[in-house]
């Protein structure tokens, strides 16, 4: 319990991840699935960024080369990874949104169960 309180950022990040993951897995509405995907990824980035942060330290931008004290700066690698990750999740979101648009224009609904039902019905008619 003590550990959880001390690392409240990481705990919150994991809770966000779980919320997003279960939304992406269980929700039947496409748009809510995509929102879940974004919550999941954001949770991960929060986790990564908070792990790389050091209390009281600054961003590693060197102004005076002669007076470098490593303890003054945070680890820049997690921030760079977060940036890369954001790019990935933006493109994934874009492609799932475009799929959703297509599904809606074909089936006139965003609910996946209904879409499956319609698809099955049309398949039976074809045979």
């Amino acid at each position, binding site marked *: 319990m003590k550990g959880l309180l001390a690392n409240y950022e990481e705990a919150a990040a994991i809770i966000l991840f779980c919320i997003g993951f279960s939304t992406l897995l269980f929700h039947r509405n496409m748009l809510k699935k995509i929102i879940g995907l974004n919550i999941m990824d954001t949770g991960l980035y929060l986790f990564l960024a908070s792990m790389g942060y050091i209390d009281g330290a600054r961003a590693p931008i060197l102004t005076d080369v002669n007076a470098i004290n490593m303890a003054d700066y945070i680890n820049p690698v997690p921030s760079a990874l977060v940036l890369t990750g954001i790019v*990935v999740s933006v493109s994934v979101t874009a492609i799932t949104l475009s799929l959703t648009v297509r*599904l809606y224009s074909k089936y006139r609904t965003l609910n996946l169960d209904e879409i499956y039902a319609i698809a099955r019905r049309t398949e039976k008619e074809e045979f």
Partner: protein
Amino acid sequence: MDFICNFPFFSIVLCLLSAVVCSVLSGKAARRLTLCVEFVLVCLALTLLVYTVRTGESFNYTMGHVGAPWGNELRIGVLEALMASAFMIVLFASVLGGGTYIVRDITEKKRNLYYILLNLMGAALSALVYTNDIFTGYVFLEILTLTSGGILMIKSTGKTTLAATRYLIINLLGSGLFLLGVILMYDLTGHLLMEFMHGTVSELEATGEYAMPLRVTTGLICAGLSIKSGLFPFHRWMPDTYGNATPTSASLLSGVVSKGYIFLLIKILYRVIGTDSPAVGAAQNVLFVFGLCGIIMGSVSALRQESVNRMIAYSSAAQIGYIFVGIGLGGHMGFCAAIFHILTHAVTKPLLFLSAAKLTEASGGSPVFSNLTGAARRAPFSAFMFTVGALSMVGFPAFAGFISKLFFSVAAVTHSSAQSVVTLCVLAVSTLLNAFYFFRTVIRIYTPSEDVSPLVYKDWGFMVSSSLFLILNLVFGLWSQSIYRIIVSGLRMLA
């Protein structure tokens, strides 16, 4: 450093460049360029394979000017070169063989986009196989997922859109878990390059610190990658996806993309965590059980299908199960069997998908079994190739499938008693089921029927590519000892 050491980097950049060029070309020109580039990739990968086998050691290639432990690296050993060669050959042959269907399924305006996606897929695959940096692995994993979603949804019917949605959702769940695993691993070790991560992991194991987080991380990585590759019970997207996509996409997804994920998993197990770690042992037991379930469920479901495409798709689910059983058995022979089966399946499934598409086309376009009666009269060459693929999948001697089943049995026998008995029983049952559903199809297509109107045109692309797959099948089946030696030395280099 020899000039050859630049080849992995060349193959990634060449794909990216040709993807850019394809965006301004017509569909036909884009196809020619893509085929040329893929042929060059095959040559580059084969050269690397010969080079690494001859020198007998792996090499690291630094990307940019920042060296280890901070910079980004590629790493090429025998196994990476072998995998890259196999994947590139399958990529080349699937694109060559499915040409007529790409024209049929994809509108003129979008055809060059399809080749852009294929080029990006080539880049993602090469990077995934060669990378030594786990986060680069994640990024290219996502690119691979996106491109494979793209080659599914480009045939814009309702069914393929639905299948692509399902595929992407399952894959994104897997990516989320994998990314969490990678982040935790980075937090535990403080490194992104595989050998440095391994150094810290073995220190942690020696002191016994962070045993639980290590176990969780290993579990997350295994879960993420096995969900992405379609291990039971996450195989339900396969039939819809493979059944409705254009044949080239289906063969690439089953032959190459899911294998890319599995190879990354093997690489992480060997190079980051270490196969002798207790965390890996626990994960292997879980993978083993799910693999066995996958074999049985996949084969039983394949039996119950009414169309040939869906049958082959469920058979893919069963083959993924085999590979995970190999990983789950572990040890030297288990991993060998898993890798050999990756190769076998990669050169057999595309052959089945492409020839089934030809048979379907010759029988009026519907893939249901009742329609395929006597298809061998209408398309004799494709029927022959389908039979070859079926024999190999069932495990007929002289074909690759026989050798991989042999390796699995050897791996099972050399293992502890409980697991070995279960594995041998499942192998026997599944071979029987395989034989049943494949030969049922083969007998059906060779049953004489009234309606004989042969396919009139000659599809040279299909002939060349299916002959290539046939030759590879025979090579893996007849010269298995040398392939085995290559895999063994590759695994030794990985560790």
